[in-house]
């Protein structure tokens, strides 16, 4: 099925009395993308989704679908559908009637409706539930029916408002894989809202990180993780160590940073444009830090000494919190891949940490 859509959000603003929910937000979403809006509660992602669906009107800006503004169109006239957090299946209609609802609203013939409903049920692998009522279904089944209902009349765009948050962990993982496959098979554009950064990283082609009504960074998952553009993004996505310091000098991709209380550190292959003397932070992912009693650093590595302050055994990995000489607590990860004893260090042990010069990424904000 070839369905393409190009959605453009231009300088959209929305405020409620004094509270600014969205502040001049602009985005371009390509056809066939799995695009995610990611951010903490209150960042505006759900507000934006509701504006796209038509349940609310922006105070400024425009929303264009295929280069045509859809702001003045009511929800029932927009060629996009929403998957709600609590599924919103109509309790007084059977599953078949639920799925057939949009077709009925569009005026399809009865025979057509029957055929397409059966087809939709086959697609979500629930063909024998047609006559059942929603309250007889499990959470995962309800979610699949909600998706079937939203896709049955082939919308241009699907909006998903934290659809998996009501499911338990194992089921959520299953549904995530199903969603990825579904999106790939049908090729329809998904706009997904979540506060779970792990979910966003796993599902999306591109992610827009939002905070307090603004877009902070839009990128593919790997670059968001490896090259966050601010402390906020670095901290929000995955675990991150933030080492504050001043830029001493920059020569091309090579930057020397004076870390507070620790000394100079060399960052190579840096993509951040720094000005000498300005404040910055080095973002360091825990898995990029080497930790050992005697770390034997190579030329490209920076190293420091400290002691183990805390540790968390997580089964597959152990997290070590190391206190450095300036009092900073550094989080490092060690995979428990060696056979036998898996606790390499105890609390209080003296250890050394090292990381390669391209392991960290500098952020200025």
């Amino acid at each position, binding site marked *: 099925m070839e369905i393409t859509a190009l959605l453009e959000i231009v300088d959209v603003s929305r405020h409620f009395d004094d509270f600014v929910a969205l502040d001049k937000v602009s985005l371009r979403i390509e056809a066939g993308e799995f695009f995610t809006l990611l951010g903490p509660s209150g960042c505006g992602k759900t507000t934006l989704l509701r504006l796209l669906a*038509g*349940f609310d009107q922006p105070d400024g800006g425009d929303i264009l679908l295929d280069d045509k503004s859809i702001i003045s169109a*009511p*929800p029932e006239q927009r060629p996009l559908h929403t998957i709600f957090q609590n599924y919103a299946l109509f309790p007084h209609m059977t599953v078949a009637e639920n799925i057939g609802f949009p077709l009925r609203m569009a005026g399809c013939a009865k025979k057509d409706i029957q055929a397409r409903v059966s087809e939709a049920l086959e697609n979500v692998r629930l063909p024998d539930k047609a006559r059942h009522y929603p309250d007889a279904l499990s959470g995962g089944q309800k979610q699949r029916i909600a998706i079937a209902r939203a896709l049955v009349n082939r919308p241009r765009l699907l909006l998903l408002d934290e659809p998996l948050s009501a499911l338990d962990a194992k089921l959520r993982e299953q549904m995530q894989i199903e969603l990825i496959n579904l999106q790939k098979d049908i090729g329809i554009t998904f706009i997904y809202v979540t506060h779970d950064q792990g979910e966003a990283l796993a599902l999306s082609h591109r992610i827009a990180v939002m905070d307090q009504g603004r877009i902070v960074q839009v990128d593919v998952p790997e670059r968001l993780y490896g090259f966050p553009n601010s402390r906020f993004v670095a901290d929000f996505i995955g675990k991150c160590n933030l080492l504050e310091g001043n830029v001493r000098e920059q020569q091309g991709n090579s930057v020397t940073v004076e870390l507070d209380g620790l000394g100079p550190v060399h960052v190579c292959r840096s993509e951040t444009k720094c000005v000498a003397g300005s404040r910055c932070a080095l973002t360091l992912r825990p898995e990029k830090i080497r930790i050992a009693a005697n770390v034997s650093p190579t030329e490209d590595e920076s190293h420091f000494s400290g002691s183990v302050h805390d540790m968390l055994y997580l089964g597959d990995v152990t997290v070590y919190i190391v206190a450095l000489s300036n009092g900073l607590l550094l989080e490092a990860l060690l995979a428990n891949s060696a056979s036998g004893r898996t606790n390499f260090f105890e609390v209080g042990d003296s250890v050394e940490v090292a990381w390669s010069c391209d392991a960290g990424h500098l952020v200025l904000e």
Partner: protein
Amino acid sequence: MQGKAWYKYLLSLPPMAYLLIFFAAPTFIMLFASFRYAGEYGGLAPWYLHEGGRLTLDLTLENWQRLLETDIYLRLFLRSIGYAVATTLLCMVMGYPLALMIARSGRKHRDLLLLLVILPFWSNFLVRIYAWMIIFSPAGALTRMINGALELLGMGSVTLMYSPTAMLVCLVYVHLPFMVLPLYANLEKHDLDLLDAAQDLGAGKWRRFWLITWPLSLPGITAGSILVFIPVLGMFAIPDLLGGTNGIMIGNVIKQQFMESRDWPFGSVLSMVLTVTAVAVVLLGSRLGARREGR
């Protein structure tokens, strides 16, 4: 979504208009009527006079002054309040155990038990009064039994009918569900874990009730009390049938003014007093309720 404003008016205007005409307006008309003279043949005299081509207002305060002329009406008023208070307290005493029991019962039984409380209430109002007339009648078994016992003890006989006792019993009987239902609605929402926690910390059965259940149920008690107090205040059928000459309440006098004496202005005055009292009680009750929630 578009069109919100006209939708709001479509929904709210018809019922508002109806109630303004048939509820609010009559109330104000009656307030106005309390300042008019009574008509020659009863009812209301015109409120203006046509004297020599000019319209002059023909209003008076005498109806209100009549209230204060003797202490009859004050005593009447106090008696009505007395009955209202007594009925409310008795309903509280009888209704609380019932509401508590239903709230603590299993899910399956609750609806049935509630229905059983409500059913007598939905039987006709007069039928319920009539039932007590049968019970209290001089020829009835109850009176004969009591008098028989009294005779044995050497005391004279009593008539239960047309007595304050009969009125009170009937008043409680008729209004009991009004106390039970709001109280139940409140008790049902109580978090029973609180009681377990208290027990865990050493509180016995009665203390658990006084320190936890009772305070939490006060909003329910307040609501129930208002729903009992106000109707009793305005009662006239029960005093009329069971009360006898000493049982007359404000409601009876109001009825009398409007139907028999046809002194509508004075009837309006009494109605206004009753209205103000009722409104005051409701405001007091909701103030109390709000204060407790705010704590």
